[in-house]
């Protein structure tokens, strides 16, 4: 955000975006569950050219003891970008950005998983970004809630990760890479599709309060669409009898 590239043209004369999308149109989303045989539950999310894969393990005994909670499970969440997922290779290992995203993703999921059902245990959620084209933290949150569902972990609601943003003083849904690099703001959110609650929220850049409200309206609209794809993916898994 705010890279000082105000002169990059991101909207066409016909009001559409460079890739032909309308301002309130999200990139195509595909979702599959049960993709990793070694995991308890897993999911694969493709949003535009992003690919996020998530494995869930557990509930299992939490160790060392000092991380155990007497009244609930702990979620151990890692968000990781594969070295080949970005334009320039990134060195393996947990960087500051990944640690922050892991933390807020864990907190979003803790808000919906019925942790009190599994005292003293641990649930591991492993999010791997295999290809990154802006919006990976949102794709990762969607993948994580799908993998938890695939693992049969009880939840109050799913979580949909989705972002809107601002480019050329215009609020748009679901920024792609160029829009993220040269845009003016990004507002990623984690929305519970049934309750309408927010369990994840970040923002950077520059948004007036009215722009914030419009961006959030787009996020809610997209969350409903993605929710349908999620439900269909879960249904396909159990219809197919693969479990």
């Amino acid at each position, binding site marked *: 955000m*705010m890279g000082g590239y105000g002169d990059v043209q991101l909207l066409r004369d016909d009001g559409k975006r460079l890739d032909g999308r309308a301002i309130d149109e999200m990139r195509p989303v595909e979702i599959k569950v049960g993709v990793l045989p070694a995991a308890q539950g897993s999911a694969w999310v493709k949003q535009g050219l992003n690919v996020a894969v998530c494995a869930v393990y557990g509930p299992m005994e939490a160790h060392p003891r000092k991380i155990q909670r007497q009244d609930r499970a702990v979620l151990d969440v890692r968000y990781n970008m594969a070295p080949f997922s970005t334009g320039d290779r990134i060195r393996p290992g947990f960087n500051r950005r990944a640690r922050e995203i892991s933390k807020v993703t864990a907190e979003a999921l803790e808000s919906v998983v019925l942790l009190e059902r599994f005292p003293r245990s641990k649930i591991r959620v492993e999010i791997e970004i295999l290809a990154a084209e802006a919006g990976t933290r949102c794709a990762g949150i969607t993948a994580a809630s799908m993998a938890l569902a695939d693992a049969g972990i009880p939840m109050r609601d799913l979580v949909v990760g989705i972002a809107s943003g601002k480019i050329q003083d215009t609020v748009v849904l679901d920024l792609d890479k160029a829009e993220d690099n040269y845009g003016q703001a990004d507002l990623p959110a984690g929305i519970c599709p049934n309750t309408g609650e927010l369990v994840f*929220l970040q923002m950077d850049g520059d948004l007036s309060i009215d722009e914030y409200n419009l961006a959030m309206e787009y996020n809610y609209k997209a969350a409903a669409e993605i929710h349908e794809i999620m439900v269909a993916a879960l249904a396909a898994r159990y219809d197919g009898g693969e479990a």
Partner: protein
Amino acid sequence: MAAPVPNLLRQEIERLAADDKRIDGRGRWERRAVDLEVGLLYNAEGSAKVTWGGTVVYAGVKFELRTPWPDRPTQGSLMCGAELRPVAHVKYEPGPPSPESIELGRVVDRGIRESGCIDMESLCIVPGEKVWGVMIDIHVMSDGGNIFDACGLAAIAALRTAIVPAERFDVGEDHVLGVSSTPIMASFTRAGGRFVYDPCEEEELGGDERIHITLGDTEHLHSLQKGLKGAFTPAEFAEILDVARKHCAELRDLVASKEGN
């Protein structure tokens, strides 16, 4: 420092909340006393000390000469880091940066960076060859609750009073670092079921969700962060945002009052 009795404390906070009261007697949207001092520290090119209730935070600004990134040959850089060292509270352990300290540093960094208050072009000395790197380090010395707001305040105050040490680096005369606005953070926590502004240490023990909002001079949003476990509604957010506007404006005036000293 009282021994933490989380469950009893949580019940007490809930009981008080039912009467619209808080554990330290404040109103729901009331702030604790804040004291700001600037320019205290030898060797820091800008510095600030914030005493915010029982919270004490120092920020220091240092400069270095750097080669610019090839794709941004006329831009300097800004780096903001926070350390939650074990000096600040019995709960902090030594070791590599915790997720909490990384989040703190990154949220403060985004609020300042995204406000655009520092023109990266103004940090250029020789395009493609030499630019200033500005580094703000925040040192939390005593955590009495709401360290996010105290750190954000210390950081922007240290920046707004910083002198670029051009003479020491042989690249011209010392001059004030140009900072065109004063982004301010306001933080809220759910305590007793409802959100309150400026949580104290006891209110943070509940561990319920926090919302951090950074507003610029024109009341635009520059950074948002929801932290910790919990969910909130858009209506709750709208109410909070309104409170943030008032407090950010007050604290912006406090920073202004220390400049030019």
